[in-house]
């Protein structure tokens, strides 16, 4: 199975790198691909919590939201330099994850699901009531994030490859993390918590750190999300968005970041395709989701193993 963990992502990265030169270079295709890559990052970060730490978070959209709103707050103050924006956004979402996680991780199972959902909703309502940043209506950025004062990110291709580079970075980071000392403890905790305690590990600390790291990566995805649309709204933080992210992870499989990556791409493509068919695509998507969960127990990543 090992080859699939690296071969599949590498093939996907190559395809994404080649896509603009293979007839997917128009605005709409690039927007779609950027969206897929950004959600790929978000799903990878969520998979670290779900697959790595064995915790089901239904509030992950808030991590992206905090990252995106950090861009908004800085933009409002006319700070757009990437070397300011990105670290601050990442720190903000990691801090949000650490504070909410410190409470949520004291619980487990269904409590954890509900509490993360509640904190996600809290973030949603908080952003909705921020009238200076547009409240419910959202906020249009004055400008995209700048690199050393250059507006390079406004170039479609440049943005595409920035997303790709960061996606690869996140995938590599999570992959390395899972194989490190820390990752081994995390995997042991999620599979057999009692055993991990019995050899001397306190699960709480490892889970909390994983949760904060996932929050940080989610925040980075949020920065890109804000830049991709040059617009940020509370709608980015709805709990349905968290549900979508969770579905991406399950659709791909929780065995590692490669699953989340595949799941996110599949999700965005299915969504796009269905939305082309009918305005009421959720009528199809909902039942499709149920069937996927029912039949695809190991996710897409586990498919060839069956039979």
């Amino acid at each position, binding site marked *: 199975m090992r080859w699939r963990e690296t071969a599949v992502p590498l093939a996907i990265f190559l395809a994404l790198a080649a896509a603009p030169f293979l007839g997917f270079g128009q605005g709409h295709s690039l927007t779609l691909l950027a969206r897929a890559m950004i959600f790929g990052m978000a799903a990878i970060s969520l998979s670290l919590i779900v697959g790595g730490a064995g915790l*089901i978070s239904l509030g992950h959209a808030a991590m992206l939201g905090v990252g995106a709103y950090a861009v908004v707050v800085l933009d409002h103050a006319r700070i757009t330099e990437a070397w300011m924006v990105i670290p601050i956004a990442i720190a903000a979402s990691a801090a949000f994850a650490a504070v909410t996680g410190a409470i949520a991780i004291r619980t487990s199972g269904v409590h954890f699901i509900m509490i993360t959902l509640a904190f996600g909703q*809290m973030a949603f309502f908080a952003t909705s009531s921020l009238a200076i940043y547009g409240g419910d209506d959202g906020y249009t950025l004055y400008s995209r994030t700048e690199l050393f004062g250059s507006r390079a990110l406004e170039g479609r291709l440049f943005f595409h490859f920035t997303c790709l580079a960061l996606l690869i970075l996140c995938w590599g980071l999570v992959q390395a993390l899972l194989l490190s000392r820390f990752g081994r403890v995390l995997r042991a905790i999620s599979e057999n918590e009692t055993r991990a305690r019995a050899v001397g590990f306190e699960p709480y600390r490892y889970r909390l750190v994983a949760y904060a790291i996932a929050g940080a990566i989610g925040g980075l995805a949020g920065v890109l999300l804000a830049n991709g649309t040059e617009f940020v709204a509370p709608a980015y933080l709805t709990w349905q968005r968290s549900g979508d992210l969770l579905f991406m992870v399950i659709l791909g499989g929780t065995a590692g970041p490669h699953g989340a990556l595949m799941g996110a791409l599949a999700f965005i493509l299915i969504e796009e395709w269905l939305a082309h068919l009918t305005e009421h695509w959720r009528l199809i998507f909902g039942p499709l989701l149920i069937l996927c969960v029912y039949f695809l127990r190991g996710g897409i990543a586990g498919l060839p193993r069956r039979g």
Partner: protein
Amino acid sequence: MNATLLFVQALNGLQFGILLFLIAAGLTLVFGVMDFINLAHGVQYMVGAYLGATLAAWTGSFWLGLLLTLPATLGFGLLLEFLVFRHFYDRDHLSQVLATFGVILFLNEGVRVVFGTAPLQMPMPELLSGGVTVMDGLLYPTYRIAILAVGLATAGLLWFLVERTRAGMLVRAGASNAPMVSALGVDIRRLFMLVFGFGAMLAGFAGALATPILSVEPGMGDTPLILAFVVIVIGGIGSIRGAFLGALLVGLVETLGRGLMPDLMRLVMDPSAARQTGAALASMLVYIVMAAILTFRPAGLFPARR
């Protein structure tokens, strides 16, 4: 803000809490008895509201509509149980979360297709359209008082059913030890169906009851669902008493917070900043209260014995 207004806000809070209780009661029982996490419980509230509105329009009577909503939402709940939920009882929470999330996507969109996106407004039933003088110079809408009364009566009935009847005893036993109840020769699947249908009916009833004071629209069940989750997390999962007290607490905090926060903030900052900060804080208050409670009691205030 003066005392009268505060009193009105408190009444509104209690009434909102009662509605939340009707939703949370089913949710906590379904979870307690079946270990099944049902995100689609909120859409059952929405379906109840739509069915109530439709049946009222169809029969020409709000009361008949409300009455007919009970069997209709019961049937709808059982149908969902048969089509979707029962296939996920044995699966992990993650699968249950996603499957019921799929149900939400479908039903929210389905309602949009059938009824359109525009909110439906229900007229107040004539009998209760007036107000009651609850205090000198204070007229409080009769209908809201009726909701309070009906809700309290339902809570009492529920308490009686769960604590004093054989079916209730089985439900309580099932909540603490399902295999044991099954070993006693009780058909646990039928018990599950019963609890499920009943929970759906309560949520639907709450939805229909709320039609004259809320706008009926797609997605209207989502926010109450999440607040109901907060309620049962605060109250302790599986506990009816916890759900009741948790619901009243959440209702009061949510309503009073929105009323009071901006005023409180005005004590320390200028009016426009106070309005903003107050509004932001008020919307977060319920979750902050939840976090505070969980910090000291991770299993909630009244955890059901497991």
